[in-house]
């Protein structure tokens, strides 16, 4: 069994922070394609279009018949064949984290693979494989115990493949709304040590404020994402203590493009959701990057909660879809930058949120608690993208299958 993770001890200010290396990022294009699926939490291997053989490591042709290959979901069962504990390495990250256990497994899907081993598994054991992303955003096979073992997710190796909120300190950017408040509750339930809840207007009380203030580990902090000074000030004050940022900023107004829209609404939306995202990234990104390998409460993830309609646009909500599209583009750029420093950048996509702005939208709508659950799920599994609620899942599936058809459908 795994020793339970102990809460982080107060840091000796004279002690250097580990630099947070990531392993060499050189990968084949096929491995990058595997990473994309890993970021969605799928367990995939390439399967031959002709003879149906599953293959690994990533190839460009089938080794049995030279047919072309496609990524497909595969059974996750495997048996451990060999193990080793690596004590000496020339890699800077693994050197900091030695000893490190790996082994080879026989996958139920067919091929064998070299994999990271959970501390509770041994040669001969049946295991459940997970396809993870490593700190550099590259795909990694991880062998987990077949059945849950005590404190399983606290395994030191496993924790470097997740951004589990347990013992971590989280900034939720908009605490005035139901999404931010649901987020705070879910984070505390998941073991977060502290939640800093942003308040964009300290002169006005907000619904739920009393309940939030009553939580021992919640602190309301002034944060107006449309104001660079406000973001910079909070970043200076809290930057070195924030391990996860969850950006819940959202400005929803019904709008068309040529019809039924106001330029000022669009501008306000961009200022808050898009420029605001960049302000947060600039304010908190560097300090988080410097602390990505800082022990139990190392900085781990930047999460952005945005509308799934950023993928497609949406009739009647054009402005909101446009800001979401811009957020997705910024998040992709940020992900590339933060992969160099070991911080995960996560998009959680939502359907129409069940709030006052979507009263006339027919169900299914996405409850704030569902969004919070999806964020926690993405953090604990180390995902790159996650859909909150059925509407977002449905749209994402249609978009993956035929992006232009889905765009047409959503804008009619």
């Amino acid at each position, binding site marked *: 069994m795994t020793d339970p993770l102990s809460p982080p001890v107060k840091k000796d200010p004279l002690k250097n922070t580990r630099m947070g290396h990531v392993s060499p990022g*050189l990968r*084949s294009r096929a491995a990058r394609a595997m990473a994309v699926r890993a970021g969605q939490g799928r367990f995939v291997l390439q399967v031959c279009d002709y003879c149906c053989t599953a293959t690994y490591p990533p190839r460009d042709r089938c080794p049995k018949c030279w047919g072309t290959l496609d990524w497909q979901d595969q059974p996750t069962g495997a048996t451990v064949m*060999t193990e080793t504990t690596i004590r000496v390495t020339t890699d800077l990250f*693994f050197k900091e984290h030695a000893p490190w256990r790996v082994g080879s497994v026989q996958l139920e899907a067919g091929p064998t693979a070299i994999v990271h081993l959970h501390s509770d598994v041994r040669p001969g054991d049946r295991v459940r494989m997970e396809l993870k992303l490593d700190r550099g955003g590259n795909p*990694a096979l991880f062998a987990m115990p077949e059945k849950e073992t005590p404190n399983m997710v606290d395994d030191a190796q496993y924790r470097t493949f997740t951004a589990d909120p347990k013992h971590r300190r989280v900034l939720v950017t908009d605490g005035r709304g139901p999404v931010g408040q649901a987020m705070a509750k879910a984070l505390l339930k998941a073991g977060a040590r502290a939640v800093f809840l942003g308040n964009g207007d300290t002169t006005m009380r907000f619904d739920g404020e009393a309940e939030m203030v009553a939580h021992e580990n919640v602190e309301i902090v002034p944060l107006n994402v449309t104001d660079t000074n406000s973001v910079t000030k909070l970043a200076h004050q809290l930057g070195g203590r924030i391990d996860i940022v969850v950006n819940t900023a959202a400005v929803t107004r019904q709008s068309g493009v040529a019809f039924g829209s106001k330029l000022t609404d669009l501008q306000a939306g961009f200022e808050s959701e898009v420029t605001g995202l960049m302000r947060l990234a600039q304010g908190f990104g560097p300090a988080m990057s410097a602390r990505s390998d800082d022990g139990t409460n190392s900085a781990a993830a930047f999460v952005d909660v945005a509308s799934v309609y950023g993928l497609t646009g949406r009739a009647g909500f054009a402005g909101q879809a446009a800001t979401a599209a811009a957020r997705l583009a910024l998040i992709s750029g940020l992900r590339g930058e933060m992969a160099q420093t070991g911080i995960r950048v996560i998009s959680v996509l939502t359907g129409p949120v069940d709030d006052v702005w979507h009263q006339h939208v027919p169900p299914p709508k996405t409850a704030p608690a569902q969004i919070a659950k999806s964020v926690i799920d993405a953090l604990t599994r180390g995902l790159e993208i996650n859909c909150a609620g059925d509407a977002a899942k449905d749209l994402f599936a249609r978009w993956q299958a035929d992006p232009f058809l889905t765009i047409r459908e959503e804008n009619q």
Partner: protein
Amino acid sequence: MVGQLPYDGVVICAPVTVPYVRFSVETAHWWAGGAMQALARETGLGPADFDGFCFASFSAMPDSVVGMVQHLGLSPRWMDHIPTGGASGVMALRRAARAVQCGDAEIVACVAADTNQIDSFRQTLAGFSRFSQDATYPYGFGGPNATFAMITDNFFRKYNVSRQDFAKLCVAQRDNALSNPIALLKKPLTHDDYLNARPIADPVHLFDCVMPCAGAEAFIVTTPEKAAELGLSTARLSATIERHNAYIDDPVQTRGGWARDIDALWSAAGCGPQDVDMLQAYDDYPVIVAMQLADLGFCDKTELPGFIADNDFTITGSLPLNTNGGQLSAGQAGAAGGFQNVTEGLRQILHCPLGDQVPDAKKALISGFGLVNYDRGVCTGAAVIEPEDLR
């Protein structure tokens, strides 16, 4: 399968070693030039005299054999580049022999050269192969130590072999290195030293691992007539085998390509393993030496502990093994590590060893193993050589 034609009209001669150093500021080109210079000293030949050139290296980037030919002022009518590391010596030998036999070249310099600059080992590992960069090194980045640790872990359990058995092989090789003036590791190694060494990647410990270094090895393949004209002692090639990516369905490597072709080797050589006077095996990790002992026909894998106990692997023993100390004690100079089995075997049967002479050496078995592309060594080869003319 058509049987192998004999290597009539071909001889091997002039084994040279450019003494290894742990780290070098020089390049692979410098070391390759050093090997050519050593061949020139043995033979009196210059750049214009070699009409064949066969090259193996990991650290000559961005150059291949093409860049090396121009760098060294050669103008061959036949050349080859062998990228197979530990199998490159046997493979160079086979290719050069057929080129000479068919008249595509008359005198071929076979050269392996690698440098070892500070940090070049890490860099070589990081970009070694596509499968390793995608699917091996990101897993703890243990390099070949980790891959062979997994192979060893399985081998121990499957064949009831232990570190005690490997100790005897490694200690014997270190004993052999003691008489080799240019071996890098020359401190006597005891059985207890071996067992008490620090773990590197369990169950691989310090003395299971080779020491990466810089160096070069070379030999000449030519006609008997040309060798006579140059006054060189010669050996003949009795038989060879080569096989790549054998037994792809074995989930963990327990055998190499030798096992598939070994009968062809012994039948072409007209003898068996009991008839050889020495084994110059590829020894990047003792598990591979043990695998070769079995796959080359000395014993079954289940009999390995007994076979190792019953034999003496030192130079004067019942089965002299890696008589220069092997890579484990002489050092592993990149691809040159895949040539030292050939140069050392040649020296012993031509009676010009670096260190002590194997008594009455008439037949050498040379075995190569190369390139852990992913989870196992892919390339294997073996050759039997015998003295022809001692001059």
